[in-house]
């Protein structure tokens, strides 16, 4: 086996990384334990909770259920959202609505909400339910998540 075959390249938040891991390692664990990018959280490992949500080429994916070998595009984690230290408008809406409780699910919620608003800038309640139902929150922040998504939608519409 040559070095090229065991070392893989990952583009995360605009930086190229070379990592030497098994191709079948889930992206989540490569990010967390190899690259020290800890925004994506571990909740279930089987694509049921959404705590590990990242973007690959802008599409939200469950990083616990995508292997490193399957990643071909650029990965964005929650750490890659803020430009020049400024929060993404969705993050700001989350603060304005004081959404988070324990906060553990929230990185995943914010990522999924951003993807929703990019696809549907002015989502209905049904759109929100559809897009967000893969993200569990055991603290029951759902009512404030809905409010924050609507706030972010009208903030962007007004901009």
């Amino acid at each position, binding site marked *: 086996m040559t070095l090229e075959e065991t070392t893989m390249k990952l583009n995360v938040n605009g930086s190229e990384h070379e990592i030497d891991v098994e191709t079948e390692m889930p992206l989540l*664990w490569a990010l967390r334990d190899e690259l020290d990018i800890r925004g994506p959280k571990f909740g279930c490992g089987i694509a049921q909770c959404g705590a590990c949500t990242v973007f690959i080429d802008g599409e939200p994916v469950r990083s616990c259920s995508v292997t490193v070998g399957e990643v071909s595009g650029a990965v964005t984690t929650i750490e890659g959202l803020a430009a020049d230290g400024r929060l993404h408008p969705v993050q700001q809406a989350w*603060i304005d609505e*004081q959404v988070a409780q*324990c*906060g553990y699910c929230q990185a995943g919620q914010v990522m999924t909400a951003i993807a929703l608003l990019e696809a549907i800038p002015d989502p209905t309640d049904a759109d929100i339910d559809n897009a967000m139902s893969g993200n*569990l929150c055991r603290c029951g922040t759902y009512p404030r998540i809905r409010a924050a998504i609507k706030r972010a939608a009208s903030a962007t519409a007004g901009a």
Partner: protein
Amino acid sequence: MTMATLGKIARRTFLIGTGLVAGGLAVGYYYYRKPYPNPLEDELAEGEATFNPYVKIAPDNTITLIAPRAEMGQGVSTTLAALVAEELDVRLDQVIVEHGPAGHAYANTTMLEEGVPFPHFDESTVAELMRSGMAVAGKFLGLQGTGGSTSIVDGFYKMRQAGAAAREVLKLAAAKRLGAEPGSLWTSDGIVTDPASGTTFTYGELAQEAAALAPPAEIRLREKSEWKILGKPQARIDMRAKVTGAPIFGIDVRLPDMLFATLRMNPYRGGPIASLDDADAMKMRGVLKVVKVETGIANGYAVIADNTWRAFQAADAVKAEWGKGTYPPDSAGIRQALEAALKEGDASYGRDDGNVETAFADAPRERIVEADYGVPYLAHATMEPMNATARLKDGRLDIWAPNQMPTMVRQLAAAAVGIETADCFVHTTYLGGGFGRRGDVDYAIYAAIVASKTEGRPVQVTWTREEDMQQDMYRPAALGRFRARLGNDGLPVAVDMRIAAPSIIGSILPRYFPSISPIGPDKSITDGSANQPYTIANYRVGGIKAPVSIPVGFWRSVGNSFNGFFHEGFMDEIAVAGGLDPLELRRKLMAAYPTAVNVVDKVGAMSRWGEKLPPGTAKGFAFTLSFGTWVAQVVQVADVGGRIRIEKVWCAADPGQVMDPAIFEAQMMSGIVYGLSSAIGEEITFADGAAEQSNFHDYTPMRIHQCPQIEVGILETAHRMGGAGEPGTPPSIPALANAVHALTGKRIRSMPLSKEVEFL
């Protein structure tokens, strides 16, 4: 205190409630009066000064407040800091808030006080004496804990006094420099001002001098009308970190040279290891060791590797044979054991008014209402799976853990690796959910044991979700048998309730303090049924400890989580049988407690109770007083093509005083979602000796599309202060069940409701 001395003292134990252990009061008195050292003294940075265990100020004006309770989402770090800031005269955006070290100075005396077996509203001399006795015991044992919705009640005076004492010595120091009267100086935003000369000093400038001064003996705390921060919604201090994915949780801890590990404990709870074969696992990439973890809590093994996923994979590759547990192996057998206890077990009566036996002796059949209720075991399923990171090096143990009981972690983790408690240091991270699960400390003990096998290297032990669910300390299953005799006016003249459940304290004590035997009644079995503010002439509530040894623990609202359903489901049946409106029934039966009637009226108005509803919709009502907070809720459901949608919840709550209305509202919503979530689909069942559910595909919490709109109304009329984290949960479950009955005519007496009706 070592485990041995703790055991000796506690052998004189006179009472055990849900609030852990009390005892040895005579011995305890001396220790109680001896103040604990200020744990901040040991960790001051250069030039930093500490005034008391809650306040540190550095010369550069960095003001650090200690909020020594676990932040698991309930907003406690913000509100505890607000209590100090209000008196210290600093803004919340000027301070850093830390959890601080594990220290007996941070004992939660309120949590122990509320462990006494008296209803919250009973302020008779005996009840008050018992409460203060428990507080002394809490301080004596130095238990620093977060639970029982007690943090703000416990901190209400302590934290404000800490802020005021620091403010007063800062003024004294300024007065000395100026030769002025301290009373003539002003404080605000971290600055002392002398209005006469216009001179100002920052707190940082004065801190060193001030910390050496003694505060005045009497400091008047500010009146509510003078508050600038308290009573108003504050921006949570942890919000930015949480929306940016900051590494603040237990699983985010990183240390130089750290290893990653995971556990597999015997799924037959409490059973031994029969055999282990790690040959295949040891050949896998990145695997360092497979070690046995054998404790009085559970037995199993850990795989230590260089990456969490590699540890997970290798753990699957270990071939283990397990010895069996000592409980019935399946849900049917467990139910039989509970039924036998309900039928024949000795009840201890949390309430026994009038004479129930006589009242039923001559009751005509048609005036009697009877019902059997039941609930299953439940998992906590915190979003962050159990984990802890530990390092044992040169006789010193450090533990980083999301936990609710740092002093207990300290004592028991130290004992597990054979070192003194004083050599163990606990670093409490943010908690990715607690709900009572992290009031247990098994994960920290296991991590300490794993760290004893790594030659001084730190190791993070992360559980898989499967392990988290199968090794939970569950909310106990429970059964209830109820009967009522109705009078001619439809109101009950007699109510008799028998409730059987495994004892939580009877499960916790043997796993952590095997030398202490749990004696006396376990009040959690009847909490939410025996202590409700209803007046019924003949009213008896008995609790029976069911001997099933599956580990159980505190689950958000504890006994109230099932008794709320039992009591209020049955009250709804009484209302229907007696032809009374459910709110009217409560107004009559709770007339002696205006606070209760207030929340009933308030939620009635909020929900427009009694107004005609569109066809295919219905409402249900329930009330529970728990953790000192009086809560009434109405749930509205709708039939959507044969399935049920939970449309809306109205909640009226009276905790006496609210320190932060936005955080209080969030806690009510959270408690409601947690309760409804259990009612529409959560259940742990057993087959072949192990829990059948393993992850979120077969243990299914509420998702956003199932979540109703929630409206919370706050009243502040109760004269004692209550909690926020738990009281939202108990009434949500019966209010939903009662709404489902109103909609479908089906009286469902067994949880989850989804076994009989389908939810959207």
